């Protein structure tokens, strides 16, 4: 008995190393299954990293803001002219919208449609980001305390950003739409045909499983279809940039640009639930 113990003790680095490697390998392979939020023990080290991360990120954003505000002044005159032109166009559109709105209200009353669906959202700031070989994630400054949990969709007013993958006390990790692990069920706004938007890892989306017969063109909008149950229906996902139809195969090849400029995100909205208010 003692001989076995001595044998193990003499080779403790070897045995310890094998145990650690086996443990880390099991973590790695288990990581491919849907992940749960880390347990309470993991939240302490996450907090130890996220607080200084938050401080550095806020400081950097502050410094960048000072620098940018100078450079932005240079383009203010041109931007002002452009905004005036946009305002004129919007004024013209307003008259059209007023008429459409009145028509919409009448039709809703006819259909006994109560109120539009709205979402309960939590605003969050981005305090960190990570990029590894096409796998992209963000860290938010809101966590479990604010009601966040893994799987919640993240968006801005422009469209979908991604979904929450892990949650700490006061921070959460978000897997971006363009991450190579990401797949979102979509619905083409024009044709109502359904497909899947996969992240390519280089800032683009590949829309799959749209029949060659569907009339998809550059500029068409892809929306969330709401089928998977993670993303609410109707959120903008991306705009078609390139369509290729080969002479063979069932589907066409479609690439899209995300509706949200993911490289310039500062704040996002985490969609907690889809409720009728």
């Amino acid at each position: 008995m003692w001989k076995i113990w001595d044998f193990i003790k003499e080779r403790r680095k070897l045995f310890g190393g094998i145990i650690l490697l086996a443990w880390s390998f099991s973590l790695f392979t288990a990581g491919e299954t849907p992940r749960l939020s880390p347990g309470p023990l993991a939240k302490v080290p996450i907090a130890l990293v996220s607080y200084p991360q938050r401080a550095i990120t806020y400081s950097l954003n502050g410094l960048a803001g000072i620098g940018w505000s100078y450079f932005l002044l240079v383009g203010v005159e041109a931007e002002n002219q452009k905004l005036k032109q946009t305002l004129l166009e919007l004024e013209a559109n307003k008259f059209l919208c007023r008429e459409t709105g009145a028509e919409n209200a009448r039709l809703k009353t006819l259909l006994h449609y109560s109120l539009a669906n709205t979402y309960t959202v939590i605003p969050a700031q981005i305090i960190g980001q990570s990029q590894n070989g096409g796998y992209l994630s963000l860290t938010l400054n809101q966590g479990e305390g604010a009601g966040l949990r893994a799987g919640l969709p993240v968006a801005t007013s422009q469209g979908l950003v991604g979904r929450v993958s892990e949650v700490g006390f006061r921070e959460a990790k978000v897997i971006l739409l363009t991450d190579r692990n990401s797949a979102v069920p979509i619905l083409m706004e024009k044709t109502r045909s359904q497909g899947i938007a996969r992240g390519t890892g280089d800032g683009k989306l590949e829309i799959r499983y749209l029949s060659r017969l569907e009339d998809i063109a550059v500029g068409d909008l892809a929306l969330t279809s709401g089928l998977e149950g993670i993303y609410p229906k109707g959120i903008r996902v991306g705009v078609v940039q390139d369509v290729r139809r080969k002479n063979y195969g069932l589907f066409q090849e479609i690439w899209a640009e995300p509706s949200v400029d993911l490289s310039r995100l500062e704040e996002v909205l985490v969609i907690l639930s889809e409720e009728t208010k």
Partner: protein
Amino acid sequence: MRPVLIYLGWGWFFIVLQVSLFAFLPLGEARPDLLFFLILLMGVEFGTLGGAILVFFLGYLLDLVSSAFFGLNSLLALLFFFGVSWISHRVDSRDLPFWAAALAVFSVVEILFFWFWPWVLNPGTELPPGLFSALALRTLGNLVFGLPILKLLYRVESWRGKESAPQL
């Protein structure tokens, strides 16, 4: 002070830098793996079971705050640590060529892992373009940032009067 606390402090510092300051630099694939510079040093100077446990913990911490595949960093960190530790007993491991070779090998292994792991899980997956540029950029980034940082770490090590690796 016990080496484990010093390395833990360095590890925490590098992880914080990696997920905050370096995350904002527009480096793309050339973004360096700061924690792995420390692990290289630990493989040479602190190649004990205690060092391995600490490396596992630091890799796990990096997985928690930033990882595409949960568990990948702790696995890569341990493999890199044991690899460096094993080789360091056979070659002169406190020299620039060793560091450069170790960093280059690590960069290649890491990128290949990221590129091919989804394909291993699902062989039908198309491999994305840009593998060679990613390999070149990651290796370049790790060498450009890694060598000066390792030099600095060794200077700090010698400043605190460390002569040789402690043995368990």
